[in-house]
């Protein structure tokens, strides 16, 4: 099948279909690596993961072994995790601190800014040996936005802020919730889903599945009752789904459930009520009612195209999807919290995260199951198409419509055809 025919997008009739080979074909998966993953900015890690000089973290990003390390000058640098000499991995732990990086094969050593500083028996190489040719190599492009570090294997990629397009405003809305900046708490949730990675990008934005798939979660929360005092949301328009340009999308919900910033709910317990209202007051003073409303009373599932999600609802999760094979993805999730929170405030937030999120939560296991079930169903190759047309004729699509998923797919389809941009005003 020709790549241009993989998606049927008929805006007049409200038809949007994705051919299921997009999730199963090994050939398309290889093309996707080159045309999507290797042309975009891909998330690497958060600045708070390497607080002190010498702190490093190891990652696999778009298939490459990388690590990032904070230098003695305070700057974060990213390197390919492969010795320039013969290829062995320099960094062999997931996290740690190092003053000097030494390869364990022939003991070549490197400074934290990547310079080759030691070669045992260097004289044997002769007078033309040039240490500068053997510095640790960085990915072609490295950049960060408000603490989020990205890499790109495309030397010609647009700068990160341009790339983020309308997603930037939503990232700001997350980061601005903290008074003293955000940090990632220690520990990550790492799990594998035996399904195509794009299914999780879709699922993470899909408001339509929430009630049927996550009924046990919905029932659990409903069991705590609701808080109708000081209703700040009833008069507001319902949530919205948006394509933000560049394939980035958001599903923005009015939150009737609790948010650690800053909407109390009975699930948090009575003792948290006053504390959360103080946080809200602080936000209003700093940002005014309108922006506080957006921060505290709306939640957002934000896709930074192609494979990063910021899930800002019961808590803030950074969810990175590493495509491994057409039918396998590795997922890593981290918990992002305001630096100023500690003690009971942090405890409330950590607890809130675990109720829904994570592979031990009350909802994520069901998503894992449903995506694997879809992938298994795709083996019935006579059923060729998946439908993503919900709300396509709705002029102001809601969160259980699927504009946000179409935004992702349209950008993906454009990239697969070697084109760059799509129209932000999609339906």
């Amino acid at each position, binding site marked *: 099948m020709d790549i241009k025919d993989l998606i049927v997008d008929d805006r007049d009739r409200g038809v949007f279909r994705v051919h299921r080979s997009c999730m199963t074909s090994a050939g398309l998966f290889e093309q996707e690596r080159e045309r999507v993953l290797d042309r975009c900015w891909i998330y690497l890690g958060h600045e708070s993961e390497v607080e002190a000089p010498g702190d490093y973290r190891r990652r696999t990003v778009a298939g490459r072994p990388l690590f990032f390390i904070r230098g003695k000058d305070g700057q974060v640098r990213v390197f390919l995790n492969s010795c320039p000499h013969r290829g062995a991995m320099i960094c062999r732990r997931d996290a740690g601190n190092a003053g000097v990086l030494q390869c364990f094969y022939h003991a070549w050593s490197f400074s934290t800014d990547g310079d080759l500083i030691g070669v045992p028996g260097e004289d044997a190489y002769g007078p033309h040996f040039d240490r500068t040719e053997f510095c640790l190599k960085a990915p072609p492009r490295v950049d960060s936005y408000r603490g989020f570090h990205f890499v790109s294997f495309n030397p010609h990629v647009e700068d990160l802020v341009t790339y983020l397009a309308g997603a930037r405003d939503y990232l700001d809305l997350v980061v601005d919730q903290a008074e003293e900046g955000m940090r990632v708490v220690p520990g990550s949730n790492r799990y594998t889903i035996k399904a195509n990675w794009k299914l999780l990008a879709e699922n993470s934005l899909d408001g339509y599945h929430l009630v049927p798939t996550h009924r046990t979660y919905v029932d659990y929360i409903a069991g705590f009752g609701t808080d109708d005092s000081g209703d700040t949301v009833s008069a507001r328009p319902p949530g919205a789904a948006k394509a933000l340009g560049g394939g980035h999308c958001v599903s923005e919900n009015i939150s009737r459930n609790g948010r650690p910033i800053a909407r109390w709910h009975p699930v948090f317990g009575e003792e948290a009520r006053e504390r959360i209202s103080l946080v809200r007051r602080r936000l209003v003073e700093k940002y005014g009612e309108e922006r506080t409303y957006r921060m505290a009373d709306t939640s957002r599932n934000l896709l930074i195209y192609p494979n990063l999600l910021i899930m800002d609802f019961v808590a803030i999760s950074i969810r990175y999807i590493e495509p491994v094979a057409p039918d396998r993805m590795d997922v890593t999730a981290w918990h992002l919290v305001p630096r100023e929170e500690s003690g009971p405030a942090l405890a409330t937030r950590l607890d809130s995260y*675990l109720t829904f999120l994570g592979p031990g939560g009350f909802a994520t296991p069901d998503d894992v199951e449903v995506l694997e079930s879809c992938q298994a169903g795709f083996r019935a190759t006579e059923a060729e198409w998946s439908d993503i047309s919900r709300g396509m004729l709705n002029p102001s699509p809601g969160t259980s419509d699927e504009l946000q998923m179409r935004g992702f797919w349209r950008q993906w389809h454009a990239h697969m055809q070697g084109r760059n941009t799509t129209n932000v005003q999609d339906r």
Partner: protein
Amino acid sequence: MCRTGSLRNQVEDFLFREAALLDEWRLDEWVDLFTDDARYVVPSTDLPEGDPARDLVFIDDDIVRLRARVARLNSRHSHRESPRSRTRRFVSNVRVEETGDGELRVSANVLVYRFRSGEGAPYVGAIEYILRRDGGDLRIAYRRAVLDLEDLAWHGAVSIIL
């Protein structure tokens, strides 16, 4: 010496009974083994020493959420376990320490095989308990399942009780 032996036997009997309740999906009976102030914790695989008050873990249930977890697992809407997986638990290397205040600090190695949808794989780890005497019975006041797995590549989730 004799006393330690019989104490270990008593604790092992308790742990074997607990394992059977879990393998037989008798979860309502299982959750009744816990005290009202109990905690059930599963740390993240990359931070086995993780503290739920500070770090990201997989599970940190008080008794309210633990009972809700059981209610969820009993429901047919708990999709990862509906239909239920088959599990088989092997509990060994039991060590018992009396703490002096009527509580027992217990650790055991555990191997839980889980089979479902044509696939099977083990969860391997250790469980730390604080057991409290309640008349002639023991109750679980604290239960922490620490996985040796480096990630959840085999299972995708912690969808059963570990």
